[in-house]
């Protein structure tokens, strides 16, 4: 019950009540954005944000750079493994 799903905010529906519309894989639904609105990130700047949607709330903004960085580490790990495999085969 603690899983969430990524979605993108496409419109602010009620700035006062902190409600916005998200698009989750084509399904649109209203969510509460209280968790992602701060002084540095006011309501208007939430449009286009990728967020983790959980029980009707945008719980967190998804950090695209961090996602890319994690995947890059794994990519590199794969390359290193391949190289090690090749070395081992060469040695045997």
């Amino acid at each position: 019950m603690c899983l969430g799903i990524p979605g993108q905010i496409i419109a602010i529906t009620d700035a006062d009540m902190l409600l916005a519309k998200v698009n989750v894989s084509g399904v649109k639904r209203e969510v509460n954005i209280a968790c992602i609105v701060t002084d540095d990130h006011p309501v208007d700047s939430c449009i286009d944000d990728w967020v983790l949607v959980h029980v009707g709330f945008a719980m967190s903004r998804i950090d695209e750079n961090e996602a890319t960085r994690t995947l890059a580490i794994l990519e590199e790990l794969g390359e290193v493994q391949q190289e090690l495999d090749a070395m081992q085969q060469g040695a045997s």
Partner: protein
Amino acid sequence: MKFVDEFRDTGKAKSLTKAIHKIAQSLAPKLTKPLQIMEFCGGHTHTIFRYGIEQMLPDNIEMVHGPGCPVCVLPMGRVDDCIALAEHPDVIFTTFGDAMRVPGSKKSLLQAKADGADIRMTYSPMDALNLARKNPDKEVIFFGLGFETTMPSSAFTVLQAEREGISNFSLFCNHITTVPTIKAVLDSPDMQLDGFLAPGHVAMVIGERPFDFIALDYHKPIVITGFEPLDILQSLWMVLQQIEQGRNAVENQYTRIVHANGNTPALEAISQVFEIREFFEWRGLGSIDHSGVRMKESYAAFDAEKKFAVPNIKIADPKSCQCGEVVKGVIKPWDCKIFGSKCNPENPMGALMVSSEGACAAYFNNGYHERKTA
């Protein structure tokens, strides 16, 4: 789907699995028993079974499926309390779908609904608040359960009800806290765990620091982990690296979601509405100090425990249940004497058989009806 498919890539899963096998091999001479790594969260248990992650792991690494399935750990008496509330004549009782099947001492919420109580499944506590707006002549109760992940949504809903002066909405607060629960697992004398995967979405709310004690006081590695298969494999690899290097630290694999300090608006809402309970009763684990929250006195008008007479029914777990030992990694689900026989998903006796996120249900549903002979 963006941020999902990339983290299910089989090529990357293969290289991670290889890296895991390599470390496990180099650790093997030093081990006297398999390494036991606990995933605390039921969401992780779900991913591990759905993607067959255990089958990809070397023999000397064992996953222990922790108590972090909030539905599973609901005591039977609490379900009876819910039904008592739901059977009040003017009440609409609302909750997440997962809670509907949990057995009480006589019936589940689903059966109570069939018997005529007005019980409705909602996707969000906000939907319950909507019901209250639309039905001013009814009392709408939302059964709030779950760890810190779901706590903010309940808190924000109560704050919204207060702002709008919606007086026919209340919360039956059964939220539980992660840290005291992990501590209870670590403090049990038969505990043999070597490392932890920390619940990513709890950390999203509370941040990294609350997990420090696991590294500092208990000297175990712990990695904050996301919910896709690559997240779990990468975190396991990170835990193993710590073990190999003799380090114990809190590391964060799930950086795309989890910030070191957690989520400030969510934490503020939680501390505004909730306070720690002295203790909370769990299925399978007994009573754990400080492991739950209740609503503050200032929100009594929205507190179902204050508005209604909650019977507070106490019913002991059946004697034959061994959920506590399974959760601590002392025994495997199939070692429990009633696993698959008296206790099965259709007719759960113990907590871990209740939802698909519980360890015993996960084993049973994935075809381990008895001990696997390797």
